[in-house]
Every structure is written in C-alpha cells, then in structure tokens.
C-alpha cells in the first residue's frame, strides 16, 4: 500500500493551526496499528489479487474458470453447501443453548458460559483428531451403536461431508451462542411474564415475543458463523480425509501441490469478496458494531 494513503487521517486533522480536532490524538495512537495492518494484512491480500490476474498470463483467464471448470464449481458448491448446513445446525443448537443460559440464574449462567467457551481453548487440531477417533469405523460411536445392536456394519461417519459438518458445528456453536445470548439478555423478562399474564401459553409467549426479539441476534450469529465457515481449513482437511474438498483446502492444493498460483489466488479472492459482500449486505440489516462488541 502506498505510504501517502496511510497519512490520510493525519492530513485531515490540523485545521486552524494548533486547534486540532478533539479526536486527532486518538487517530495518532491508531497509526502504528494501522501501518502494521497495512503491511502484514492488506498488502498480501492486494498481492493475492494481483497474482490472480497475472498468473500464468495477464487477464481474467483464471476467473473465466469459475464459469467453465466443473471442478471449480464443484468446490464452490460443496463449500456453500457445507457452510449452509453447518450454519443452520450451529444456529439451532446455539439458540437452544443460549436460551437455556439466558433464562438460568446468574450463578448457573457462569457455569453454562464456562462450558460453552471451554472448547475455544482447545486447539482445532486436537478437536478434529478427537472427532476422528470418535467417528471412525472402530470408533466409540460405531462400536457403541453396534454393541446396542442398532447397526450391523459400521457407519461412514468421518472422511466425508458428515464428518466435516460435525467438526465444524462443534467449532462454531460457541460463536453462534455469544451474539444470540447478547440479544437474549437484552430482552426484559417481564415481557414474557406480561405475555403469559395476557393469556399467551408458554409456547405462544416464546413464538410471539421472545423469538422476534431475539431475531437480531439470530441473524448476527448466522452471518458470523457462515463467514467463519467459508474459511475453514484444518477441520475439513482432517475430517474430510482429502476426499471432500472445501475452498481453503482446494486453494492450498492449487498453490502448494499443483503450483497453479493463479487459480489458487483467484478462488482466494472470490472468498474474500464473498465475505465482504455478505458483511456489506448484512450491515444494512443488523448493527455490526453491536455484533462485534462495539457500541452497546
């Protein structure tokens, strides 16, 4: 990134001699972080963009493959499908969990939250391999089901899309819970009592009052989980067993194994654009600042 772009906020600051705007000091404090981000984050992304239109030849040839290559389309289709399924399941589980936490006593809430957040401190790698041990043909789940006589042959639970979804859902549930819990905590419990007092059954009070009031959290969690899922690499790589390719692994394959930098960079760019577009669309629907912890 050209250095003069970085100087923009500072250049806008001094207006009448010493009379700096009140925020100028804060902007100056942000400058080092801004520079660092430009160098280690924005610059490489721009470089990727550049590679995608220059390798192997200059032009939009790589992007043409989006429409012509069945292989590329299959990867995109698989990725979208797995991400959508993961998002829906993580939202359902996360909603139920957030609901229980939101209605628990303050003491119980702390324990629930600890339980929800605990997996976040365990490495993705460890969790993925743990799922492999549980789900493989001789794993605990298959042995258990066979022991109970429910199945004769072990089920294919891992090294396919099912395994990937299990691992991804497990990873994403805490991220689904947090925004929804935040939204639910803002719901005045008296509204539910009011609904009951005015003649609504528990179910109706939930459907007509709680659900609509928690909807912003649901949407926010959906966006968050979906975007996170798009970039998943380790979990699908391990639980997919190399047979089901998602975008991130496909990019790695293109660049490291096939040395087709242009193709890898093209899909990477597509993913980034997809994420930014999703954010742009949903920033009009929900308050993103609130979703990511800013504001109040």
């Amino acid at each position, binding site marked *: 990134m050209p250095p003069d772009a970085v100087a923009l906020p500072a250049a806008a600051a001094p207006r009448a001699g010493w009379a700096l705007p009140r925020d100028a000091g804060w902007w100056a404090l942000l400058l080092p972080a801004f520079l660092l981000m430009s160098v280690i984050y924005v610059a490489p992304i721009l470089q990727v963009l550049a590679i995608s239109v220059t390798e192997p030849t200059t032009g939009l040839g790589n992007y043409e493959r989006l429409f012509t290559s069945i292989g590329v389309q299959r990867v995109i289709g698989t990725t979208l499908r797995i991400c959508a399924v993961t998002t829906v399941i993580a939202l359902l589980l996360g909603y139920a969990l957030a609901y229980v936490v939101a209605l628990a006593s303050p003491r119980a809430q702390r324990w629930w939250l600890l339980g929800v957040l605990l997996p976040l401190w365990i490495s993705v790698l460890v969790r993925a391999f743990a799922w492999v041990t549980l789900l493989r043909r001789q794993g605990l789940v298959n042995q258990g089901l066979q022991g109970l006589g429910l199945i004769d042959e072990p089920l294919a639970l891992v090294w396919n899309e099912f395994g990937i979804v299990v691992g991804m859902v497990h990873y994403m549930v805490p991220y689904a819970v947090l925004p929804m819990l935040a939204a639910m905590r803002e719901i005045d419990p008296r*509204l539910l009592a009011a609904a009951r007092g005015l003649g609504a059954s528990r179910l109706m009070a939930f459907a007509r009052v709680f659900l609509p009031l928690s909807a912003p959290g649901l949407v926010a969690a959906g966006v968050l989980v979906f975007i996170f899922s798009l970039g998943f690499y380790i979990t699908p790589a391990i639980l997919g067993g190399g047979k089901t390719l998602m975008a991130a692994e496909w990019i790695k394959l293109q660049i490291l194994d096939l040395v087709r930098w242009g193709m890898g960079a093209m899909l990477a760019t597509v993913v980034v654009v997809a994420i930014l577009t999703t954010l742009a669309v949903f920033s009009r629907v929900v308050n993103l600042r609130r979703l990511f912890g800013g504001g109040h």
Partner: protein
Amino acid sequence: MSAPVAHALELRGLSKRYGSFIAVDAVSLRVDRGQFLTLLGPSGSGKTTILMAIAGFVAPSEGAVLLDGADITGLSPERRDFGMVFQGYALFPHMTVAENVAFPLRVRGLSRADRDARVRGALDLVQLAAFAGRRPSQLSGGQQQRVALARALVFDPALLLLDEPLSALDKKLRAELQDELKALHRRVGRTFVNVTHDQEEALSLSDQVAILNHGRLVQMGAPEALYERPRTRFVADFLGKSNFLQGTVREVGATGMALQAGATRLVQAGAAHPAPGRPALLSLRPEKIGLLAGAETAENEVAGTIASWAYLGAGYSLSVRTADLGEIRVALPAWRAPIAPREGLPVRLGWAADAAVPVLEDADAA
C-alpha cells in the same frame, strides 16, 4: 347484584415464604365486584408478591386465591383471564400500539375483524386512537401507560391487576392519570386491584385500601375510615402525617376519657375504655389543630413556641415545641392563619376532644 357470590376476589390465609423469610404472612381479604382495591405499603412489604400470587406468577406457600368463590390457586397465569398492567408497563417493543393491544385477542384466537373492532374501542377508551401505528418507544410515559391499560382491558377481563401503574411518571402527569384511571374504572365497571406505595394515590383512587407492613395486612377499609380511624401507629403514620401524643389514662367516662401527659391534661372522646393508670397513645392530624388567639379556648390546650416553619403555598407547616407533648406539627391554611409565623414565637395550640384518635402501638396490634 343478584348472584349469591358477593366477592369477586378473596384471599384466604395467603402466605409466601422464601426460605425462612416470610414475604407475605397469612393475608386474608375480600374485594367486592366492581370495587377498586389498593394494596398500600412501604417498599418490601409484600405488595407485588400478593399481586403476583393473584395473577398466578407466584405460587403461595399457604392459603388460597378464590375468584367468585372458586379456588384458582393452582391455575396457570394465562388461564386466569386477568388483565394486567406491569410495573414499567412491559409493552412489546417490536409491536405497534395496535399490535400490543391486539395481543391478548390474538392469543385467544379472535378473528381479524373482531380484533380490529375491539382494538379500536380500547384505544378510544384511552384516547390513543391516533397513535395506533406507533411503536412504544415513540410514546411518552403517560401514553405508554395508557397503552398498557388498553391492552389489559381489551379482552374485557373480570379483574384488572395494576402494579404501580403511575410510579414512573412525574408528579403532574401522575395526578392527571389518577383522575383518568378513576374515570376509567367507573366506565368499565370491573374489579381493579392496584399496588402502590404512594398514599395519596391510594386515597384518591380506591374504594378500599389494604395497608401492608412486613408482609402482614395491618388494616383494610375505605380511605376515609383508614385516615380518620387508624388502628395502629403505623397506619396513622403511613397514611398522611400525624402527631403521636403519649399519656396516662386518668379517668374514664361513658363518652370519653381524660389523659395526663406531664402537667398537661387531655380530654379525648370515644367509647374505648382502657383501665385508668394504663398508658395511652393518641394520633392527632396536623390539620386538626388550631392556633388559639387571645381569649379563645378549646377542649384541649397546650402552649409552646414555634421551633421551625415552612410556607407551602396553600398553607403553613409549623413545628411547635411543647413542654409535655414534644414537638407538634401543625398544618395551617394560609387564609386562616392568624399570625405571621416566626421562630421562637410563643403560641397556644387547641383541638377538640374528638380531633385525635386512640391508636395501638404496632407491637400491641400484632
């Protein structure tokens, strides 16, 4: 009133314990159909707990709630069919005013046409028809309160429960809405049970007031009766202001008694006959005391000096220091004040034999 059941609502020995803490202690009371009952008491006296037990949100530890003679203690809140105005109103923020008011009808499965007609009627009742399309957040506090009332009345409940419906409003608006609430009660003719810790509100709105303290029902009656004939020191003190005169019974007659407080002799009308020699406590309202001018006399007279005074617009509030009865508070209408008060001014106070009321110490009443 042809039905054999005279009482719309009855509480029988209602108690609620939280662990070893007794929030409500054996409260029994009855409300006649169409009456306006107010539960009045200081903070923490158990008012909300009683209201929530009536509504079905709090399960009583003991006792029963009866509606038209039928025990409804175990019935869930939504089956009781009571209208309810919550503390802070609890309007649904994601619905418009009209949708809020339609909510009780919607959950009862009324058709759209029926709903619309009833909602319009209820909004007209509280003069908010023009605001039907707004969200609660776009309304003033007073308007929100009226939406809550419309929502609670729209399904024509037999009983309307109100938890501090006016406490969130400023003083002027509160007075206005008090009048409206009273008019509304008369118009709809339903039984209202209201909770407040504002004694003025209780006096001006209610047919019956139940005074609570520490979870107990201390006294219940019409506002005038409670104000004029408080049974205990707590009631006299909580409802309006009062002076408490401590004395010893000297003589007892058919129509009254004489008390001695230091060198001061007091005469007190009444049919109560405590034994001579016993201590007695009188409650004397500040507005029943007059300043005696010149040769004027009264059945009870005591001399003192003005310790402090305040001008309150409609009148003066004096604090008069006396030798035998401590400080006595006097409320003097400004138009009748014979003097311009100033600190240290010697005055003579006078009141009639029937101006004060004998009351019990709270410990004796329990």
